[in-house]
């Protein structure tokens, strides 16, 4: 095999294998990963099958807001043991003068160990942004028809653009529902004003489109 042939075959195999690895890494492997990870969705409060609710296109049951709830772990550093003070040897003099008592020098204070630098935490996502965590108080500030946020099952939803489209009318969206936790009301276990009704499965499907983030506290 001539040198020219060796080089050309090597080059071809180099390019071919590189392409194979890149295609596998960028297209084949990610798809396999996505297929193996389940993503359970929002379910109506009762156990009846909800029409139109598909598991693949639904809000997450578990909110992976790792960026906001990341805990920093610090590795404990060993405390340096203080070194013993050096002892001074007494001077011996030919005269019988009393020998001076050696005064022990104070032990050097160990320098405080530098604190380990904490790992940089990911920037938290702001309340109101996709995936951003809000407190109940922050949600409560949005309590009008034109600025209506709601809490359902520990998650908040921005439903302002939904208010005028609500099949039951917009009267149920007021200062007692907007900005509040409406879980009990949507589950039919509580009344909102004088109203008590349950929602269809498709209502929860639509609600899942309005999900923004989790509620803390």
């Amino acid at each position, binding site marked *: 095999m001539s040198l020219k042939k060796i080089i050309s075959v090597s080059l071809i195999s180099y390019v071919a294998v590189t392409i194979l690895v890149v295609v596998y890494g960028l297209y084949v492997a990610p798809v396999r990963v996505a297929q193996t990870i389940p993503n359970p969705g929002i379910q109506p409060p009762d156990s009846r099958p909800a029409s139109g609710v598909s598991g693949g296109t639904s809000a997450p049951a578990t909110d992976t807001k790792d960026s906001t709830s990341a805990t920093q772990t610090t590795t404990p550093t060993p405390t340096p043991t203080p070194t013993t003070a050096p002892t001074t040897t007494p001077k011996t003099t030919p005269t019988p003068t009393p020998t001076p008592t050696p005064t022990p020098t104070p032990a050097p204070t160990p320098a405080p160990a530098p604190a380990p630098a904490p790992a940089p935490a990911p920037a938290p996502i702001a309340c109101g942004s996709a995936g951003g965590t809000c407190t109940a108080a922050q949600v409560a500030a949005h309590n009008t028809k034109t600025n209506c946020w709601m809490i359902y099952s520990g998650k908040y939803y921005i439903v302002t*653009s939904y208010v005028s489209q609500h099949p039951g009318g917009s009267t149920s969206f007021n200062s007692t529902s907007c900005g509040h936790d409406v879980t009990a009301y949507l589950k039919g276990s509580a009344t909102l004003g004088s109203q008590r009704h349950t929602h269809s499965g498709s209502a929860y499907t639509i609600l899942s489109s309005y999900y923004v983030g989790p509620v803390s506290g």
Partner: protein
Amino acid sequence: MSNLRKKPEKSRNTPGAPWIVGAAFLAIITGILIVWIVRQHAIPSVSVVSPVSYSNGSESYQPGTSRKYVIIEIEVKNPTTRAFNFAPVVQTYLSDDKGNRYDMAPAELSNPLAAGVILPGETKRGQLSYNVPVDVTKFVFHFVTDDSYNISYTQSL
């Protein structure tokens, strides 16, 4: 008989083999590096994947007088190495050539796209709906994130 006792012939000397094996090994390393670099710099993408359709509403959802629903099917891809939070109600809207903005509105959809976390490598596809005036036919789809991804994407419909 003498043929049977004959030792098998030594394989032909291939001086190029180490070169080819070396090149293949180097290629694997290069490929892994390329994949790593590409995935580090990748960003989630959202695109409208089917022609726009219109709806005059259903029994439950009515767009209102002189209004209609624009229904688009979008695909959200997350080729990155970290989870992506997708919330169409705050990240998507339509605009027309006069600069009017139309936010997401509920409609009966055959394949609604829910909000939620798009895992690394995951792709989701589904429909979103917007309430618009009947006389407007040209729209621009906007996808804007204000989190750490800071994506701003538009597509004419």
